[in-house]
């Protein structure tokens, strides 16, 4: 395939991935790696490198918009980033020890899990809880804007949330994805943080987590300019466009369709990993 054709096709596919990722809230990175490996027969190491930088681009681009709205909690984010960044370093080192086939299989299971999570997507918040002593000590409690004015929330389950975040960091460093699904799970389920706060805080953590392993991947030669250029620009443009029309779009059906696509890709990654084709 010529460089021009490859660039054009990968940029178009990445645009679509970023667009659907923003509309459905699943993130574009999660389909970029299967697209590159299954469709374009790119080695999974190059695919991981390209996906990582595109994850940083979309996270920073979206965080720039969210940060003004006052939902994200910088203390929760920074505290948990000590777990995700160290986890990401661990993941990037583990990646050296396991084969591309095993990474493909693990990736497939993460895809299936992401699709499962998105199918039971909800926006209702758990009833308010009392803060745990550790949450008080770390001053994680906060306020966020609602139509009725500022609403106070308290945080609990800090050790469990921290542990899950460490796992999210390992997955991010190993697979080159944002692990947004695991991050929201940690904050939403374990720490009982309101949905709006956990999604926006998770989003801004994703870029920092990805940056923690991107430097290592760059120096290992995984980040190839010919692949990362169309992927990053495509995903970024697609996600900005998706975020723009998000307010008007009816995404329920789309979310199910996209979840179906992800299940199919996950199954194919697992199959190709087990049969040694990746």
């Amino acid at each position, binding site marked *: 395939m*010529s460089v021009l054709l*490859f660039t054009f096709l990968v940029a178009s596919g990445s645009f679509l991935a970023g667009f659907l990722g923003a509309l459905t809230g699943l993130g574009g990175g999660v389909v970029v790696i299967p697209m590159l490996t299954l469709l*374009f027969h790119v*080695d999974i190491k190059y695919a991981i490198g390209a996906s990582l930088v595109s994850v*940083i681009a979309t996270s920073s681009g979206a965080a720039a918009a969210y*940060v*003004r709205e006052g939902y994200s*909690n910088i*203390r929760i984010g920074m505290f948990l980033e000590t777990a995700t960044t160290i986890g990401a370093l661990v993941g990037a080192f583990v990646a050296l020890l396991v084969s591309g086939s095993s990474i493909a299989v693990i990736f497939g299971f993460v895809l299936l899990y992401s699709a499962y999570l998105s199918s039971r997507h909800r926006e209702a918040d758990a009833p308010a809880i009392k803060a745990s002593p550790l949450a008080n000590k770390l001053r994680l409690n906060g306020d966020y804007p609602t139509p009725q004015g500022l609403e106070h929330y308290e945080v609990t389950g800090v050790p469990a949330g921290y542990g899950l975040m460490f796992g999210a960091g390992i997955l991010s460093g190993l697979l080159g994805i944002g692990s947004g699904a695991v991050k929201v799970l940690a904050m939403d389920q374990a720490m009982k943080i309101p949905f709006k706060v956990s999604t926006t805080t998770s989003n801004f953590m994703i870029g920092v987590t990805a940056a923690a392993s991107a*430097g290592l991947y760059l120096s290992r030669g995984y980040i190839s300019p010919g692949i990362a250029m169309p992927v990053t620009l495509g995903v970024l443009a697609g996600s900005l466009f998706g975020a723009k029309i998000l307010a008007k779009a009816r995404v329920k059906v789309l979310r199910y369709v996209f979840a179906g696509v992800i299940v199919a890709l996950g199954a194919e990654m697992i199959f190709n990993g087990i049969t040694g084709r990746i």
Partner: protein
Amino acid sequence: MTIKGWGDQRIEIIVGTLLRVGVLLSASVVLIGGMIYLTRHGHEHINYSTFHGEPENLKSIPGIAKGTAGFHGQAIIQLGLLLLIATPVARVAFSAVAFAIERDSMYVAITLVVLAVLLYSLFASGG
């Protein structure tokens, strides 16, 4: 972003601007590098199905700097990607300063841990 006492609004605006400028700047650099690369190498054939690893001048910071000075398209793309990786790092560094101004020593320490991990990844092995 609720940093109390130093003007929440101001910090939010600075962080938002920092992120937006970082992303726009790096995307523009990647685009410029991409144009040069496509103009010069657009009709060559590529195959990424086996991993070779990028050459030294596209994976180390000094190599990328040298290639950029020589106006190499691929090196300029890598420079843009480096700027992209540096954007969250700059944001964490800024948070450390904001916590210091608030005299919140616990969160200065927490932020410096995150910053140390990021700088390690970027520089320790990138020489």
